């Protein structure tokens, strides 16, 4: 289905939900204020639903707002977002009956940072970006250039296993098969795995020395739903609220362990990082570890217990003395 067609159906669905009082809020995407951006639209107003959009730039994982809005919400969700929603249901943060999921089968989203790197131009210097299947056409200075889609999709999209929402009330379009490149998706992780332990630690040390502790990675993450994060605890003071690499690194390690089994590899933490820290090299690794060790994939079954509240009598014994 074309984006345009999907949008029209979305407008209709969203409007109906509000009109019939099935939901109090609609959470979706509208066109952003800058080129090639979208921005979350959280509204009670039926007339606003005409502003909803679906395009290759709907990056935000909107489920982060579900724990915040009061009342029932109709939410637009891509594959990964729907799994975050399921994960929140598993954790009893939200109730399934309070959410109407308008699922978007997602063919992958375009990573503007990659586009910028490919063309050596900033996003606002580009004229147009369109996508047709496995080809992305980018117009710059009036000239159109083609690129294979795999070159400009987000790394996490390249590794996406479930582009179609796992849980939905309405599905806008046919289940999609995203164009993936599993090797490219985890290339940076592989690079890290190949080097020595000391080098890995030094790598992260370097990366986290740039962190300014804006907490965008945490606040944008639907799995980070704690009312009060351990970094804000003062008794005991687990780590200093001062951006030094030691504290930054510790924060990120603990955050990753805390969201193990909740992270759906939506890639938001890495996308929002203003310092370009490759956070997905941590989250994705955790995602894989959880899968390898416990055959658990986050947000696949709303009736399953969350990873860290469950156990098998015999599992992961090898390291126990």
């Amino acid at each position, binding site marked *: 289905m074309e984006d345009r067609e999907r949008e029209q159906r979305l407008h209709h669905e969203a409007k109906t939900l509000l009109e019939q009082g099935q939901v109090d809020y609609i959470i979706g995407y509208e066109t952003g204020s800058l080129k090639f951006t979208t921005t979350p639209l959280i509204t009670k107003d039926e007339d606003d639903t005409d502003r909803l959009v679906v395009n290759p730039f709907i990056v935000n994982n909107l489920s982060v707002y579900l724990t915040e809005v009061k009342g029932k919400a109709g939410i637009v969700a891509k594959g990964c977002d729907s799994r975050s929603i399921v994960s929140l249901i598993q954790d009893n943060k939200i109730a399934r009956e309070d959410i109407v999921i308008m699922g978007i089968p997602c063919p992958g989203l375009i990573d503007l940072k990659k586009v910028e790197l490919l063309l050596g131009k900033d996003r606002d210097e580009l004229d147009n970006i369109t996508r047709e299947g496995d080809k992305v056409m980018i117009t710059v200075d009036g000239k159109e250039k083609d690129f294979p889609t795999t070159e400009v999709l987000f790394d996490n999209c390249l590794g996406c296993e479930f582009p179609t929402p796992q849980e939905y009330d309405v599905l806008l379009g046919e289940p999609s098969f995203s164009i993936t490149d599993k090797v490219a998706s985890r290339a940076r992780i592989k690079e*890290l*795995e190949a080097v020595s*332990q*000391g*080098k*890995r*630690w*030094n*790598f*992260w040390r370097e990366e986290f020395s740039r962190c300014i502790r804006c907490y965008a990675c945490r606040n944008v993450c639907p799995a980070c739903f704690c009312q009060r994060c*351990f970094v804000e605890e003062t008794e005991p003071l*687990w*780590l200093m609220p001062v951006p*030094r*690499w*030691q504290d930054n*690194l*510790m924060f990120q*390690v*603990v955050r*990753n*362990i*805390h969201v*193990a089994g909740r992270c759906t590899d939506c890639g938001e933490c890495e996308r929002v990082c203003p310092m370009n820290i490759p956070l997905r090299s*941590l989250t994705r*690794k*955790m995602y894989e*570890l*959880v899968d390898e*060790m*416990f055959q658990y994939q986050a947000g696949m079954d709303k009736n399953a217990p969350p*990873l*860290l*509240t*469950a*156990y098998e*009598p*015999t*599992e*992961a*014994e090898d*390291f*126990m*003395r």
Partner: protein
Amino acid sequence: MEQEVEWEPKLLGFLCRWCSYAGADLAGISRKKYPANIAVIKVPCSGRVDPLFIIKALRLGFDGVLVSGCYPGDCHYQTGNYHARRRLAITKKFLEYMGVEPQRIQASWVSASEGGKFTKVVSEVTKELKEVGTNQLFADGR
């Protein structure tokens, strides 16, 4: 005059109060010798140990962390040690990927009657830590 003293690793142990702590106690009562490298924090259950504790211990300069609890099926709270095991497995693997030497994160099942096993675990872990060397992970800029 200063003498070259052999470096001794510092180990932080989180021992569950029902089994492992009692096991450590027994080791002491029966005058079993084990390395004095371990500092012990008594926890109600191995399931109480948040991975945060482990990383904080490393951050504070401990060379290794040992989490010890009841055997599977013996947990005073039924399932606490199962949860601990899952969490520890993840923590250990993840930290290894980050670049922490796997020997620094240790876990064991020690029952209240296993004073001998406790001594053995502490000795083995201490030996391993000696091989790995001092914890330089968070050094500098403090």
